């Protein structure tokens, strides 16, 4: 897929997410927009193979996955349109949805689960990657560090963890949390590979994702992102963690996503 095609996919995902969020008055738009390029690159860029495992720990970004699964032909339009309806698609991923590997909802679990899948790959001697994507605020969970320790000690080279480093939690800033000082170096000392990159730059994402195939250690990818990316008034504003746009905001967001903003 060309760079322009990927950008168009990302634009479409954001528009879908905005519509789902705006029309149904529920969802997590900010943290979804921050990881759109990462998800599009995984699914449309060919990095997530059919045999691979993927656990989106920040499952509140599920609307983007629904949009992508629909685009890939794995989810019907009728199903996509049930988002937010009674009995329809919910605000977290569930394995009842075809194409979803794991239930989501509580954070701090994904890295350990993916480590288990990667351990199975190691025991079986197969090249099946276990991917997970976690939020940056999620690194406060102790279970993340338990998994970092284990995977480094056991050299789980099939394990790839992407951090959506959007610098905002649900209610606050995590910009200056000291754990992010030299995080890459910290995990490298624990037996991991680590790469920091712009999580909205498709070319860079492609290079980084491709490079993980040659690593012989577990990999922590620190994607620098912007919460609310793509809509001027949503960017870097904690309000949009689970804020819902009013009519005026919705129209402005629609305009900006359709034609861009400066």
């Amino acid at each position, binding site marked *: 897929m060309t760079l322009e095609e990927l950008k168009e996919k990302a634009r479409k995902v954001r528009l879908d997410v905005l519509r789902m969020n705006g029309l149904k008055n529920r969802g997590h738009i900010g943290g979804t927009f921050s990881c759109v390029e990462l998800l599009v690159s995984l699914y449309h860029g060919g990095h997530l193979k059919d045999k691979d*495992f993927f656990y989106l720990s920040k499952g509140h970004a599920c609307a983007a996955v629904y949009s992508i699964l629909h685009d890939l032909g794995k989810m019907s339009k009728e199903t996509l349109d049930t988002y937010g309806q009674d009995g329809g698609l919910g605000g977290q991923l569930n394995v009842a949805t075809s194409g979803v590997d794991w239930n989501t909802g509580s954070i701090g679990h994904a890295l350990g689960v993916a480590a*288990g899948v990667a*351990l199975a790959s190691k025991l079986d001697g197969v090249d099946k990657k276990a991917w997970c994507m976690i939020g940056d605020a999620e690194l406060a969970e102790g279970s993340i560090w338990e998994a970092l320790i284990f995977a480094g000690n056991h050299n789980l080279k099939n394990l790839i963890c992407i951090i959506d480093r959007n610098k905002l939690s649900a209610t606050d800033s995590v910009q200056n949390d000291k754990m992010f000082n030299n995080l890459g170096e910290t995990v490298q000392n624990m037996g991991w590979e680590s790469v920091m990159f712009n999580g909205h730059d498709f070319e860079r994402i492609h290079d980084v994702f491709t490079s993980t195939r040659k690593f012989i250690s577990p990999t922590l990818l620190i994607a620098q992102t912007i919460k609310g990316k793509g809509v001027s008034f949503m960017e870097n504003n904690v309000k949009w963690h689970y804020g819902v746009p009013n009519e005026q905001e919705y129209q402005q967001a629609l305009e900006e996503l359709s034609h861009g903003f400066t």
Partner: protein
Amino acid sequence: MDLRDAYFGALAEVAIKDDRVVFLTNDFEVFSLKGFKEAFPKRHINVGVAEQNMINMAAGLAWAGKRPIVFGMCNFVTLRCFEQIKLQVACMNLPVTIVGVGPGFSFNFDGPSHHAISDMALMATLPEMTIWNPSDATTAALLGNEIANHPTYIRIDKGDFPENDANVLRRFTILRDPSLRPTLVTTGYMTERCKSIAHELNLGLISVAQIKPFPRELGNILRCAGHPIVVDDSHAGSPLAFEVANAFAGDNMRWSAFSLVSLENKHIFDFGDREFLLSQHGMDIKALYNKISYECP
């Protein structure tokens, strides 16, 4: 035979032949797995004292086709990592077996952190979880012979326990005719303590190994028996009591009486021998005899 040797010895034999089996432990050791650990070090992994990660990894292993067996002390493999068990094992309905060693007051010298008197109750809140609490080596060995295909919690006590001298039905054992009313319904460590009391007071006695799902045929037997007296060294949230009561529910509550003899619902900070702790809290044989006599018509 020590219940640990019966269970883990049988399990090790299965694991030798079934390479899907992977043992994970939180820095805990059992004698009967030492040989397996030496022969198959890749499938016996000490994950360190990191129970949340241990359960999450077990779920990932199970998803990838393995049959992980997680073991450690009862409380640390259940209470410490409850959300991981709920969401990643139970909600995902994966074949993870969690083995808690040392139920009740078997770690008697370490206080509430080690007293496993609420672990079963907590596991019983998980709809997908099967719970076993064997009271003799025969049942423990039978459990070790089989790798479960669904979320399972197995409690294995420490030490030698007398065999239940009756036909072993695995899920429960009728030790004395339940038509002798009332009938003591007990589990695990309490089974042996109930034997002499049931004999002396001429009561029925059933030891339940599979607490959940509660054996349907046992429900039928209990409904005929009429007056169950549940004896459990859990504190007030006894899942055995709940399951026995539940066996009557929907059947117009056809019991003449229902009694529960268990620990008070409080944390216990006494240190001492297991029997000493039970005596301090009304669950030694003498206190049990008095309480059960009082419940009898």
